[in-house]
């Protein structure tokens, strides 16, 4: 079931012809027929096949890497290890989701001196066949000195923990410590007198919660082909969330000029934040430079799990103070996040979002970023926010029980609204949090009766959404159809929304617009696709480019009518002459103007680059009904309802898909997914058989309700929608299980053994 509140039908109210409609997706046929070319599908003549040799140790000094035997194997054309890569300074570069240290990025791409996690790349080979490359890996002799390792976040924070880096001195403290540690950074957000307010509260609830590292779980493994010519000109074909990001990072890691690299995006088979950095591309480029031939590198699923970023496992401690009437007066939140082998967990954004749904006068939020001997974490959909929300929303559920109030009413009473200053700083405007919350109670699922062993949980979530740098070009063909080119890989339907916005602006049918993703040499710079920014920011560039085209068309019509452009109006895809001195003129269609473009000034085209500001934040409210099998501990999700402030839905089906997808990933995080390590720090479940993500047969239809509170800073009111829906599900599911079995399980995932143990402890 799906619904939209507060939105007129397309063509009514706002008068939109295309915005808000559900045309067939432009990439649909290619994907369902298997013709879409993903990262691993690309090939070149004379291409070599690369393989990566990876550390079997979670933490080890690399004593030596001997490649002689591998190089002697017939068919092997190149072998590289850390010594072949340039040493980089600790320079912060904006390119991916946040500023990254190029030294750390390069070290993550290829280990040097130490291997920092099981699966860390230590060498790579390129050969004339995959089999030869595989055989060559065994001939690369790496001598290790194994070191003590640490993966658990609190173990890593202990003073006597194995030290992973000797250059990390905790940042964010009043005084820089004299000794290095695994604690990279402290984040802190404080307002008011939290201790005083907690002391004066009528009711205080305190809870401690934990989550495990989970992977983004994209179906398509990382893959690329790289070709470096003898003239120093390189090309890369790869699947990522940002080919400009790939270009920037590869240029930095290999000390190349950006203009010497051209990156062409492949179709992407899922990213969810995990493809906002590079792993293979610099290695393939270096192998190609040495071998003098293109090199293809494709990860196995095993490699994806062991060597690419999951998100953090974390500890969340929450203390809430309230009056008897349910007014929350104080909150204290402490977050401890695994960063993996290098600093940069999402604990900062977790801290900023932790209380963003609420208006709480006194709070202290502290976050700790902690390095561990596991793969460097990468962004995962609303990075960090689901983890802190799991703690806060679980505690909110318990506070509601303690106060004896409805969980939705408690959240509404303390909920963010226009004019409320967010816990992370700014004052909210044009937000639809309360509307999203109230929509839960208006949904039929709210009134569904619960049977034995069944329970209901509610939780809410917030994500900022961002804008940023984007470029778009609109080209009009000789027949009046349009091509829209952008620099953003389409990971969630952006081509469809670009086509709709261009069609709406130009006043032509959406079927007449063909959206494409252009390579780095064919379109201006665009930040990667992430942060729920593309429909908002790149969409803004598309609209501005279409508006420039219209100005161009009006000038051409003016030439034809021998008048000024001010005397021309553009409406519904046609130019109208307003110059009464010219008599009645038949309107000129886009097709007509395009057909005579040569006579009026040449091709009709416009490109716009901008840095979009004014992204509206997203709020989501979810409700989950579960049934727990008391004998097996298995949880069945009976009903799931997701409501969200979506701004204006440009293509409602895609918006619903984002809401459903976020909910499903969150359900998997809550119930099944976790990294399991053995005593040596090696991952034990690096495959989809043992690391179980939910599949369609595990779940009911995810019901969605889109709340449309348009963003006034976007031409069509768009807000980002891709991240907010993964924030509430962890707690929504956990709260439902708590309701069903009568006991709180504070540690994710809620796997059957944990549930059985909780039921037994209650009975005992």
């Amino acid at each position: 079931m799906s619904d939209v509140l507060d939105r007129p039908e397309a063509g009514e109210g706002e008068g939109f012809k295309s915005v808000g409609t559900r045309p067939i997706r432009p990439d649909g046929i290619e994907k369902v027929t298997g013709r879409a070319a993903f990262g691993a599908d690309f090939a070149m003549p004379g291409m070599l096949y690369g393989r990566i040799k990876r550390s079997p140790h979670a933490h080890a000094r690399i004593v030596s890497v001997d490649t002689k035997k591998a190089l002697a194997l017939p068919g092997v054309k190149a072998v590289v290890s850390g010594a072949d890569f340039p040493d980089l300074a600790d320079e912060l570069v904006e390119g991916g989701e946040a500023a990254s240290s190029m030294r750390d990025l390069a070290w993550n791409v290829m280990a040097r001196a130490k291997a920092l996690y099981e699966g860390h790349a230590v060498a790579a080979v390129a050969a004339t066949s995959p089999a030869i490359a595989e055989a060559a890996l065994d001939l690369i002799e790496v001598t290790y000195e194994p070191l003590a390792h640490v993966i658990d976040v609190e173990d890593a924070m202990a003073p006597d923990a194995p030290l992973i880096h000797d250059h990390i001195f905790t940042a964010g403290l009043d005084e820089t410590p004299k000794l290095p540690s695994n604690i990279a950074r402290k984040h802190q957000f404080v307002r008011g007198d939290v201790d005083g307010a907690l002391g004066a509260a009528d009711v205080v609830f305190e809870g401690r919660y934990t989550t495990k590292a989970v992977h983004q779980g994209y179906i398509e493994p990382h893959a690329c082909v790289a070709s470096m010519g003898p003239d120093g000109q390189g090309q890369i074909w790869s699947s990522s969330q940002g080919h400009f990001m790939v270009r920037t990072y590869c240029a930095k890691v290999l000390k190349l000029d950006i203009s010497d690299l051209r990156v062409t995006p492949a179709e992407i088979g899922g990213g969810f934040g995990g493809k906002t950095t590079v792993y293979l591309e610099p290695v393939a480029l270096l192998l190609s430079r040495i071998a003098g031939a293109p090199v293809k590198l494709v990860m196995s699923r095993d490699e994806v799990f062991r060597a690419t970023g999951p998100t953090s496992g974390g500890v969340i401690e929450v203390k809430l103070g309230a009056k008897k009437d349910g007014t929350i007066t104080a909150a204290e939140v402490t977050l401890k996040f695994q960063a993996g082998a290098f600093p940069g967990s999402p604990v900062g954004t977790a801290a900023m979002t932790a209380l963003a749904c609420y208006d709480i006068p006194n709070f202290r939020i502290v976050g700790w970023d902690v390095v561990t001997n596991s793969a460097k974490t990468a962004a995962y959909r609303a990075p960090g926010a689901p983890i802190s929300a799991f703690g806060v929303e679980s505690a909110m559920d318990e506070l509601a029980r303690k106060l004896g109030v409805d969980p939705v009413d408690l959240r509404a009473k303390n909920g963010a609204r226009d004019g409320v200053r967010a816990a992370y700083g700014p004052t909210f405007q044009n937000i639809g949090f309360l509307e999203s919350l109230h929509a839960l109670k208006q949904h039929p699922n709210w009134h569904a009766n619960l049977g034995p062993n069944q329970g209901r949980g509610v939780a809410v979530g917030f994500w900022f959404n961002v804008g940023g740098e984007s470029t778009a070009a609109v080209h009009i063909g000789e027949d009046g159809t349009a091509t829209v080119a952008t620099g953003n890989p389409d990971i969630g339907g952006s081509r469809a929304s670009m086509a709709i916005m261009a069609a709406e602006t130009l006043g032509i049918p959406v079927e007449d617009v063909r959206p494409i993703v252009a390579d780095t040499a064919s379109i201006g710079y665009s930040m990667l696709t992430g942060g729920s920014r593309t429909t908002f920011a790149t969409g803004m560039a598309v609209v501005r480019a279409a508006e420039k085209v219209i100005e161009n068309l009006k000038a051409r019509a003016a030439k034809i009518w021998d008048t000024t452009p001010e005397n021309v109006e553009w409406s519904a895809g046609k130019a109208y002459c307003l110059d009464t001195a010219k008599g009645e003129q038949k309107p000129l269609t886009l097709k007509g103007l395009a057909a005579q473009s040569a006579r009026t000034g040449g091709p009709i085209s416009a490109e716009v680059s901008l840095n979009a500001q004014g992204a509206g934040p997203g709020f989501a409210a979810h409700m989950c009904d579960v049934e727990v099998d008391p004998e097996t501990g298995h949880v069945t999700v009976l009903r799931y309802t997701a409501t969200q402030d979506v701004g204006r839905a440009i293509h409602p089906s895609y918006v619903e898909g984002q809401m459903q997808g976020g909910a499903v990933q969150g359900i998997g995080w809550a119930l099944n997914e976790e990294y399991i390590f053995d005593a040596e720090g090696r991952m034990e479940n690096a495959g989809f058989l043992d690391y179980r993500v939910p599949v369609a047969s595990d779940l009911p239809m995810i019901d969605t309700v889109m709340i449309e509170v348009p963003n006034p800073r976007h031409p069509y009111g768009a807000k980002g929608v891709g991240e907010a829906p993964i924030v509430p599900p962890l707690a929504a599911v956990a709260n439902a299980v708590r309701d069903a079995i009568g006991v709180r399980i504070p540690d994710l995932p809620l796997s059957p053994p944990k549930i059985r143990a909780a039921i037994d402890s209650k009975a005992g």
Partner: protein
Amino acid sequence: MPHVVAMGGDVAQFTGGQAEFDVGAGTVAGFLRELEARWPGLGDYVGARMAIAIDGEIFQDADGAAIGEASEVCLIPKIGGG
């Protein structure tokens, strides 16, 4: 004069613990210059590492954004996403 609230603790390391202050500036670029003049290093740090919310709207890398005489300016860590 625009009132500034700094969140997240980073700014306090430059200001000696001060998290709220007034800075006269009509644009983000002018604001950053004022910060740099008052606390050397802070203007560059904010320009590179932080977002600036002006009257509730978040700006990232937007030197030309206008700041009103009575604006509330909030400094927050830069935001990315997945």
